[in-house]
């Protein structure tokens, strides 16, 4: 018997919804059988807490007296440049932005101690942030310079808007060269010295909804400790990749663009991050609820780490040179055992994404739903499906003739 989201919401409001996290549901479905589980379980909650580089936030800081037009000028938040291509007092800050005087990789590998992600963390924590701006001055916006402390509570809007989060699957990064490399997947020791992966596996949102049956535009989610929404398909959305029999994509695939009011989020779930030799970023907590509308949807949520395969990619050659070759496929169960076999060798593994925090997110979302404070939404539009023809394409470079 199929359920509707409206029916599930009635149960949530009555405090009677049956909710499990994506780890618990594996055992529940095994014990009860999928048919009974699909009938009795209303929602499965997921979570992920990892470094999500394509994150950022926009702000409306309010008009100064006299007025100043940031648009076309320059603006810095704690010395980190913010984007000023918007109107008079709107700013966008990307998680990867770096202070102009950061040495970057001039002293290799760079430490990247403070950037846009750290500013977002400090704003979410309620700390004062220093805004310094210069403008060219107009008749209606005459002021040319502004230096002031700002605080999130005084901003008209502070909105987290991440254009690509919650990657459905991710590469396992290794290094086949004979020197240590510093990548966004962490430090990779020479000659297959280690292997780094980055996914919450069986807890991760899109592994539990591999064909985007319930997750779509408008889906209310856990975002950065508060609530947010799926705004759009994430950039590089790539649903047409090879999948296992159970529908689990064997590489990158789906992503989510997410949005939410930064004022109700927390620095516990938005953590400024430094990636040695690579840059600054933001570690983001995302949790997506999956309404169990029918048995098929339930079955997808029972995915286990052993069912999920990830490609092993050489970040010394194949990745930087955009070569498609992979060194093999390994399951998240193998990755979590602490070592994997590549070319007959035991290679120690490490995660870049926090499983305990992902579990805490899934459990928080579960508590919110059980206590009636979080209702599910119907997607207003689905994300492009596996058969949509949507695909991620490389850049086609065309030489410019002078």
């Amino acid at each position, binding site marked *: 018997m199929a359920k509707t989201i409206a029916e599930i919401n009635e149960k949530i409001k009555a405090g009677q919804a049956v909710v499990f996290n994506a780890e618990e549901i594996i055992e529940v479905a095994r014990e009860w059988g999928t048919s009974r589980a699909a009938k009795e379980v209303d929602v499965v909650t997921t979570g992920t807490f*990892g470094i999500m580089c394509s994150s950022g936030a926009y702000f409306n800081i309010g008009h100064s007296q006299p007025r100043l037009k940031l648009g076309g000028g320059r603006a810095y938040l704690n010395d980190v440049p913010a984007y000023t291509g918007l109107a008079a007092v709107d700013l966008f800050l990307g998680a990867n932005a770096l202070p102009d005087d950061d040495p970057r990789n001039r002293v290799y590998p760079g430490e990247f101690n403070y950037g846009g992600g750290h500013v977002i963390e400090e704003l979410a924590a309620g700390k004062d942030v220093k805004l310094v701006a210069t403008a060219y001055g107009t008749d209606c916006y005459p002021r040319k310079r502004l230096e002031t402390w700002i605080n999130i509570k005084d901003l008209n809007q502070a909105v987290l808007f991440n254009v690509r989060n919650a990657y459905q699957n991710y590469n396992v990064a290794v290094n086949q060269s004979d020197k240590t490399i510093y990548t966004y997947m962490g430090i990779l020791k020479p000659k297959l010295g280690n292997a780094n992966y980055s996914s919450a596996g069986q807890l991760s949102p899109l592994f539990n909804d591999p064909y985007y049956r319930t997750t779509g535009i408008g889906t209310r989610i856990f975002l950065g400790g508060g609530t947010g929404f799926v705004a759009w398909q994430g950039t590089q959305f790539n649903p047409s990749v090879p999948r296992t029999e159970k529908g689990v994509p064997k590489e990158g695939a789906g992503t989510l663009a997410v949005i939410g009011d930064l004022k109700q989020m927390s620095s516990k779930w938005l*953590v400024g991050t*430094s990636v040695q030799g690579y840059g600054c970023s933001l*570690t983001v907590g995302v949790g997506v609820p999956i309404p169990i509308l029918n048995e098929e949807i339930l079955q997808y949520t029972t995915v286990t780490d052993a069912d999920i395969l990830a490609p092993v990619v050489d970040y010394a050659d194949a990745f930087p040179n955009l070569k498609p070759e992979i060194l093999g496929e390994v399951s998240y169960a193998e990755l979590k055992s602490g070592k994997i076999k590549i070319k007959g060798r035991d290679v120690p593994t*490490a995660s*870049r994404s926090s499983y305990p925090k992902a579990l805490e997110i899934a459990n928080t979302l579960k508590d919110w739903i059980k206590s009636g404070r979080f209702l599910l939404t119907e997607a207003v539009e689905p994300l492009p499906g596996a058969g949509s023809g949507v695909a991620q394409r490389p850049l086609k470079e065309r030489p410019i003739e002078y």
Partner: protein
Amino acid sequence: MVVTKRIVLHFPGRLVERPIISRLVKDYDLEFNILRASITPEQEGLMVLELKGNQGEYDKGVEFLLKAGVKIQSLSQDVTRNEERCTHCGACVTVCPPGAFRVDAKTRMVIFDNKKCIACGLCIPACPPHAMEVHF
């Protein structure tokens, strides 16, 4: 009883040019392994040592160092984890040469065993939220 301890020695400027560690071997029969050593621009010395030997001799050796004017700290106080910043991602696990970090198989939490730490400092910049701190 044989003991193995990791300690941090701070040498004031006046001691930097005197042979001190060799006395631990000659007079107290202690084995040492230098994990890290440096001299600051102010000419103060810092050395991270692993000392191994008989408990009685170890105590006497430490007393000799203290009398000579060397300040001693236990290594475990020197490299610490800021528990509020640690996200338990696990990025440190394969970075640490002596394997002082491990992931609990059940909870997936990262456990830091500072007794194994050699204060090499590799985890400091490698930790994405910068949760590892060194206090020399």
